[in-house]
């Protein structure tokens, strides 16, 4: 009940962040002293590092006001560990873990999940295989047992495998005609070719047809281990009870993952422009080039820079120039996408076929302007206000806190990162941004994939 009706429509296509330069005159009259930002703690919460009797570590935030528990965990590995001819294996496994385990066949397992109101789901990125688990305090014991079974004793029954295969194949066929998916997939193929990052995470019609129970079990055994596991728990549980939960769920996994080395890689250097013809009224464009690694000292300045350029919704230059001034698109954006073995700067726009050339030209111009001039002092100030002030919004539900704490561990940023993070943003200077803008932004080296029927495009490469 009271779920949002499906036909609503928002002002922004993706939940992206908003803000930029402002004339304060009128506003100051309106809001007076409220605009003066008080420095404040990002979030006053206590993160405990819990080690179970069996030696498994997790970060815990106790929160007893609501009788539920949220857990997020990640195994390093992800789709980059798919064998070359089994692209989509990790993704396939995400669909199989709740399809029967132990003595419980698929339907019995699903019925128990419902009976005890357990929320359990799995997800594979290129570098991690992730789980999300929520339970009500009342049913914690039963819920934990189901999670233990899912991770340790999945059945991989033939009928369940075939059913999930049909579902995945249908999805792939639908995605193959979805302009957004096609543009993204083509971009990664163009950038990475045969490298594991160039392979589609959900696989292909061919590779998914080959995946067997033995493949799934082999992947599970190799990747689900204690030494590549990060866990975050938030909710109605104390450290002692969590210790026992951790041993129950994860204690039976192998000590050491057997990960195949994934070579470091830089995306192919552009300019490359690929047009994939599709009979749609609006072209979908993905653009990007090499980015900056999460561990690089320039990552935080680059993050601030990107907020100003294309990450800040209505406060970003791209939205201002493409959408607000010219009405060319509903959605235009850029973001930093750091992987474990590469780093990307990516962006996108969707615009009617005869406006693709103009939109791309405006975007290139903005990238070039930022690379040569950098942002203004005011833009930096505004970005800092948003990025520091909005940080607590990432910590207002148990699930979101657990997600944040899992990623901080995956990225190896340290248990004090939540406290340090706003200071890192505050320390960024205009000189940093100018330097990083020159280093990062290469409008002449973009890989651009366009899906639709664009007109009046100039050739950007020899193809």
């Amino acid at each position, binding site marked *: 009940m009271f779920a*949002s009706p*499906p*036909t609503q429509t928002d002002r922004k296509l993706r939940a992206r962040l*908003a803000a930029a330069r402002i004339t304060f005159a009128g506003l100051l009259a309106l809001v007076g002293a409220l605009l003066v930002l008080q420095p404040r703690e990002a979030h006053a919460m206590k993160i405990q590092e819990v080690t179970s009797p069996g030696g498994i570590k997790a970060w815990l935030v106790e929160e007893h006001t609501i009788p539920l528990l949220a857990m997020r965990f990640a195994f390093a590995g992800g789709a980059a560990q798919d064998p070359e001819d089994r692209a989509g294996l990790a993704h396939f496994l995400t669909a199989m873990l709740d399809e029967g385990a132990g003595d419980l066949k698929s339907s019995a397992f699903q019925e128990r999940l419902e009976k005890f109101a357990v929320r359990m789901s799995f997800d594979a990125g290129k570098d991690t295989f992730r789980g999300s688990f929520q339970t009500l305090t009342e049913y914690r014991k039963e819920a934990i047992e189901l999670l233990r079974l899912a991770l340790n004793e999945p059945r991989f029954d033939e009928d369940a495998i075939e059913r999930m295969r049909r579902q995945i194949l249908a999805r792939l066929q639908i995605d193959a005609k979805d302009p957004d998916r096609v543009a993204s997939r083509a971009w990664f193929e163009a950038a990475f070719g045969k490298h594991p990052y160039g392979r589609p995470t959900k696989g292909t019609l061919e590779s998914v047809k080959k995946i067997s129970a033995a493949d799934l079990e082999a992947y599970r055994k190799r990747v689900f281990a204690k030494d590549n596991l990060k866990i975050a728990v938030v909710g109605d549980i104390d450290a002692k009870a969590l210790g026992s939960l951790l041993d129950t769920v994860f204690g039976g996994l192998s000590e050491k993952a057997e990960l195949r080395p994934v070579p470091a890689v830089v995306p192919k250097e552009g300019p490359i422009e690929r047009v994939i013809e599709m009979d749609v009224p609006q072209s979908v464009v993905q653009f990007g080039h090499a980015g900056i690694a999460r561990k690089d000292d320039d990552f935080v300045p680059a993050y601030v820079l990107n907020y100003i350029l294309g990450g800040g919704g209505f406060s970003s230059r791209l939205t201002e120039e493409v959408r607000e001034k010219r*009405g060319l698109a509903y959605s235009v954006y850029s973001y930093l996408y750091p992987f474990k073995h590469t780093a990307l700067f990516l962006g996108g726009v*969707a615009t*009617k076929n005869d406006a693709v050339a103009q939109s791309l030209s405006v975007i290139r111009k903005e990238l070039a302007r930022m690379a040569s001039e950098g942002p203004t002092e005011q833009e930096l100030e505004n970005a800092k206000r948003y990025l520091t002030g909005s940080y607590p919004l990432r910590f207002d539900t148990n699930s979101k806190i657990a997600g944040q704490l899992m990623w901080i561990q995956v990225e190896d940023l340290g248990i004090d990162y939540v406290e340090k993070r706003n200071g890192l943003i505050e320390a960024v200077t205009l000189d940093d941004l100018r330097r990083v803008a020159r280093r990062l932004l290469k409008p002449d080296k973009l890989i651009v994939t366009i899906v639709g029927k664009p007109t009046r495009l100039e050739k950007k490469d020899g193809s």
Partner: protein
Amino acid sequence: MATIIQGVLIVMASLAISALSEEAEAAGTRAFHDKLENGMEVVVIPDHRAPVVTHMVWYKVGAADEQAGQSGLAHFFEHLMFKGTEKIPPGQFSKIVAQNGGRDNAFTSQDATAYFQRIAKDRLGLVMEMEADRMRNLRLSEKDVVTEREVILEERRSRVDNDPGSVLSEEVYAALYRSHPYGSPVIGWAHEIAALDRASALAFYRRYYAPNNAILVVAGDVEPEEVMALAKRTYGKIAPVPDATRAPRPKEPPHRAARRVLLKDARAGRPTMQRLYLAPSYTTAEPGEAEAIDLLVKALASGATSRLYRRLVVEEKLAASAGGWYMSTALDYGRIGFYAIAADKNELGEIERILDEVIADVIENGLTAEELERAKNLYIADYVYESDSQSSLARRYGWGLVTGLTIADIEAWPERLRAVTLEDVKKVARKYLDIRRSVTGWLEPAPAHTARDGSGDASAAESKSKSKS
């Protein structure tokens, strides 16, 4: 006078299942409800876990209140609300929110238009001031209007025209509602969007954007007294507008013939089908009916244990996925929907035959006691899970009030759900899963058309009426 209403979930302490009711009690929220002198309703849902608030203003106007020929106006106007006032320079609203560490957005549905910000609690006064300001003092330039109209046409292409599944849904809704405006899409028909202008936007604004036609919902790290004090200082200063209330919408005539819509589109990845039935909403249903429909649809078509999934996906293997839903929150009509995506073979006819069997069986025999119990449990658990999110709670109250329910209705929901019997479910199945009240839509892959009018509209929709019995 202000009253503190004992929350939603506490009500459930008396419910039959003791285990979940304890959970529910501990998860209890306390929704405060009051009214300003100018008629604006105020709801406050304290949640002190993080120092942030969700601030929403809901207007009791939506796409279904547009005049004929002006489809899309409510949504178009929602975009224009971000342009500027005397005090806020054009295009600065969201930027000011962001500079204060907040995020903002808005959405439009058939029945409501809502604006919201999520922000640190010490900025609540700021966003209330800004939101109150734009309730009456918006300034629109001709250029802003014209540029934003282009943006919305792009939004329509993204959401609908680029996606055959969305095109089919639009056609199915148009066939389901023959007289009621729910048949027009919220975003609007492209040719009608193209004709919207500044004058029509301003007329819409002046009529509906008034404190006596709005609901304030604040959830988060605040106390009701603080919010009331701020509300009086901001929204409380705005004079009510006479006749801001929307007019009743046209009613549907009796539905006597099942309708079918067939869309053949080269861009369809798989054949898919959907079946929609005209249904009542929580606002218009007889007491207990909507709760019974919720439970019926959950057992019938929601998730891997549901009857539809088991028959179509597990046993017959005709569908790659299948499910259903009940759109229950609406001022006028709701709708019940089922869908399936064909697996290897393209047998939509066979899929539809089995859907009809599953429906005929539940009309004849109802659910089992176990199915009903499981469905109730799931809903009540959802209710507890929802208390983890202040935004979800704010929306629960906002949707309820804006579609004409009372706080008491909203908070009594778990209790009413618990009271539904097997007989109640059978009754609503018989009453509302009547094929004559339905539209069946098929989307089939088809070779691309060779003749084109150049508009880039790749869909060829044909709609015809036909009785199935």
